[in-house]
């Protein structure tokens, strides 16, 4: 039991710490303060563990835990590589902010029965980190399913008919997808025993083109639901009945990003960029992603409920990541990976703002939010920041990923997607501009003075808003996200080159 043992197994500890927290939370049903203390401690601890791996991973190391054998050739295996660490860092950091936000939100709205809520939240985070650090497909699948189940209690938290309906729909979509993913995982396992992720992919030459096409299709079905690509997206707007912190962290960061993350893993580490294009799957997926981007933006225009509009916006934005995975050129992958980060900060800010507005004014519809900017200036400032970033204005974080995606499309000789990006940016402006405009310049008829939300709600959203701004100028700020993405892309393509040279 020496220090090495601890250090090597850090990915495992990162997963376990919040599971442990979930257990403790369940045992402290009657003590809300202790319960929340545990949540924050676990969140900070998790982030610390993950952050401590950053220097080593940046230096090119991969921190692997000892594989836990489930059966000959089938193992539970965690590793912290560059891409996994990027996702893990992001979600664990945002969990800290979300936990603080949670307290303000949940206490203000008095839902009751919050023990299960916090416990499920912690389990979700465990599963997310597990997905990030999964070293093979089986591990990935295990955590993916756990995430599905653990999110369900959060979606139905309010126990209203609507929430139950939303939960049912959520489960129907995700469980079905899980089955397809399971078949795909098992098939890969049969084609390449072990199914360990490798930069550059491990499936090349392992099966006929047709078999690989079908396999890719199964993967798309399996991952596409969580990543909400059209037409598999329908659960996401419905699931917006969940409390806002859930929508913020899970539907902007953890759950849907797990799907998007899966797509990047798929194209970078399972099939490999070369193979994705060779079997023609990338091109098809890119078309689907492109259509999703446009259609989701159009749908967002028509939504009056703020959270639903944000949900459609999420659908559109996630498809940027999928597009990156589909184009599978170095710049596209880089753009996709960085967009995971960028979108997380932007969208969580927007959701936090929506939640803050709901808590203070109990308004959910955009049409009712006229003049709100004068009453809640700080909140709306953060909202504006997030909205501008998401449109892709230069010097904001959204711009970097979109620029790289555009370059990636050119690398792939598919310039049409630049047009898609531009149209999408215009549409995004179209659905965010009225909100901001009305908030500042609309007339507030009721005229009741409303104050800013409580500090627990306000500070997290300000922090994320500012980070979205800072990352736009210094993409390596704090966590070296850009560096990580760059290293990941490099590893994928050098491995591919090496293979090509060797073969």
């Amino acid at each position: 039991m020496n220090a090495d043992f601890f250090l090597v197994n850090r990915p495992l500890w990162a997963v376990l710490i919040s599971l442990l927290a979930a257990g403790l939370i369940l045992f402290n049903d009657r003590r809300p303060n202790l319960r929340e203390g545990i949540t924050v401690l676990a969140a900070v601890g998790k982030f610390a563990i993950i952050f401590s791996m950053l220097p080593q991973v940046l230096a090119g190391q991969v921190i692997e835990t000892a594989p836990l054998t489930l059966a000959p050739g089938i193992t539970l295996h965690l590793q912290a590589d560059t891409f996994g660490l990027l996702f893990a860092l992001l979600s664990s950091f945002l969990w800290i902010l979300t936990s603080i936000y949670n307290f303000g939100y949940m206490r203000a709205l008095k839902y009751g029965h919050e023990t299960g809520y916090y416990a499920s939240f912690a389990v979700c985070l465990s599963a997310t980190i597990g997905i990030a650090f999964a070293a093979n497909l089986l591990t990935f699948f295990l955590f993916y399913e756990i995430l599905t189940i653990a999110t369900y209690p959060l979606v139905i938290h309010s126990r209203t008919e609507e929430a139950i309906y939303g939960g049912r729909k959520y489960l129907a979509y995700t469980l079905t997808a899980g089955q397809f993913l399971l078949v795909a995982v098992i098939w890969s396992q049969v084609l390449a025993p072990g199914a360990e992720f490798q930069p550059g992919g491990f499936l090349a030459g392992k099966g006929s083109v047709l078999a690989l096409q079908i396999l890719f299709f199964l993967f798309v079905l399996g991952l596409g639901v969580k990543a909400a690509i059209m037409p598999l997206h329908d659960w996401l707007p419905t699931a917006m009945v969940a409390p806002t912190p859930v929508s913020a962290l899970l539907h902007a960061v953890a759950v849907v990003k797990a799907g998007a993350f899966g797509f990047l893993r798929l194209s970078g580490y399972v099939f490999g960029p070369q193979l994705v294009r060779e079997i023609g799957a990338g091109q098809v997926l890119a078309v689907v992603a492109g259509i999703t981007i446009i259609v989701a933006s159009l749908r967002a225009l028509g939504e009056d409920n703020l959270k639903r509009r944000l949900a459609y916006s999420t659908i559109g934005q996630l498809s940027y990541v999928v597009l990156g995975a589909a184009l599978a050129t170095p710049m596209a992958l880089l753009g996709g990976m960085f967009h995971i980060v960028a979108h997380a900060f932007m969208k969580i800010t927007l959701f936090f703002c929506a939640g803050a507005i709901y808590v203070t004014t109990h308004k959910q519809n955009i049409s009712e939010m006229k003049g709100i900017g004068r009453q809640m200036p700080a909140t709306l400032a953060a909202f504006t920041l997030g909205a501008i970033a998401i449109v892709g204005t230069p010097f904001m974080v959204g711009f970097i990923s979109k620029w790289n995606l555009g370059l990636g499309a050119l690398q792939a000789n598919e310039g049409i997607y630049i047009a898609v990006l531009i149209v999408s940016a215009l549409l995004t402006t179209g659905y965010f501009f009225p909100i901001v405009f009305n908030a500042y310049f609309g007339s507030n008829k009721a005229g009741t003075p409303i104050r800013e939300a409580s500090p627990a709600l306000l500070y997290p959203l300000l922090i994320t808003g500012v980070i979205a701004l800072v990352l736009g100028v210094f993409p390596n700020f704090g966590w070296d996200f850009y560096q990580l993405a760059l290293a990941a892309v490099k590893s994928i393509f050098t491995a591919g080159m090496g293979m090509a040279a060797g073969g």
Partner: protein
Amino acid sequence: MTAHLPALIPVAPLVIALLTPILARLSVTLVRITALTALLISLASSAGALQHALVEGTWHYHFGGWAPPWGIEYVIDPLAGIIAVLVSFFCLLVLVYAAPYLAGKPAQEKGYFYTLYLLLAAGLLGMVVTGDVFNLYVFLEISSLAAYALIASGGSRATVAAYRYLLIGTAAASLYLLGIGYLYALTGSLNMADLAVLLPPLAATNAVALAVALITIGLGIKMALFPLHGWLPDAYSSAPAPVAGILAAVMAKVSAYAIYRILYFVFKTAAPVQVALDIAGWMAAAGILYGSIMAIAQRDLWRMLAYSSVAQMAYIILGLALGNIMGLYGALLQILSHAFTKGCLFLVAGSISHQTGIRDIPRLARLSRRMPWTLAAFVVAAMSMVGLPPTVGFFSKWYLMLGAVEAGAWVFVAVLVASSLLTAVYFFRVLEYAYLKEDQGQVEGQTREVKAAGGWELAPAMLVPVLILGLGILTLGIFSDQIISGYIHFALPWRMP
């Protein structure tokens, strides 16, 4: 005594069963203690025998000192050992569970119940460890007769169900008997090991094919393989809860085990076996879909579980039909997995019905508040049924799918996927009622009975087995590797001496 462990496995409960009617005159508590002791001895003997089989190889025990094929022998190989441990463990657990269920019945009735229960256990254990095809028939009949009567003790409807089961079950046993009659006519032997040596030269004859068919159909009826499952839903849903638990958990498994034993260890890979397995595999696929769909249509929780059994039992046959290592891993793990899972579900359903009288799914509204731990076990079991990690159900399905993909049996893959989803649908419905639906007021009056259990949501003797099974589902899932590589791996036919 350690030299006689194989004999003790079924004989311990059998002898105590013989004494029970006499002991019941004295005191029911005494009966209970002796019954528990008997099954504990069985469990310990099975575990010891399994250990012996793993360390020192297959253990042959000759009754009366006569060497086979003249005498009867018990054969403890790892396969028989695993199943024997499983069966005796379950019999013990359900016996503990049965006590609160019997409370309030006349002492006489309790005595009969315990007697038959022990005979059922003895019969099942005897079927597992025997190495003689005719001896298997005798113990099959012991367990069946005990089961018919135990089912019939559930009331008038149960008697009708039990009678129909008796007709079908006896016809099935007759088919089996006729099947081994053909084997006897062909070889002159009844010993499994001896038959395995004598049969291969005859494998091409029609008589062997007919014997395979008769034995498979006979045991297939006993394990409710679609379309021979007709007796099951009524029998399971009208039996008393402990009986339904033991039937669903182990009785059908033992027949499945017997099919595996005879097809893979006696006939080995004769051509007719392959055909029989292929047909059984397709029947199983149909049965999985049929059972799942019928389960969705049920309103009664018990009937739903019964139809779900039809589907889940077919998984085992599906794995056997695949016939590759992964498929067999899956089938054997599914035997364990389904025993724990369905056992747990029936015990929970029984507890709910015992405590509140509720059997209809819509009346379960908000039951989770009154029986949180029981319902928690139900959730775990439901997850295992659907095949979600980290429960054992996931791993058995994983191996089955792996086997199906390896064999290129895409239809089976599709069936497994579809079945998981259908299973999710019907269990989710139950959970939604139990956890989310508001109480409509019609079940208010039942809270009183819950409090009667001394502050516990259930009598401890009922709750503990339920929780043990719930934890067992998780534990088996987490340690599935050790189970596969440490035990099940040695139960594959081609590893046998």
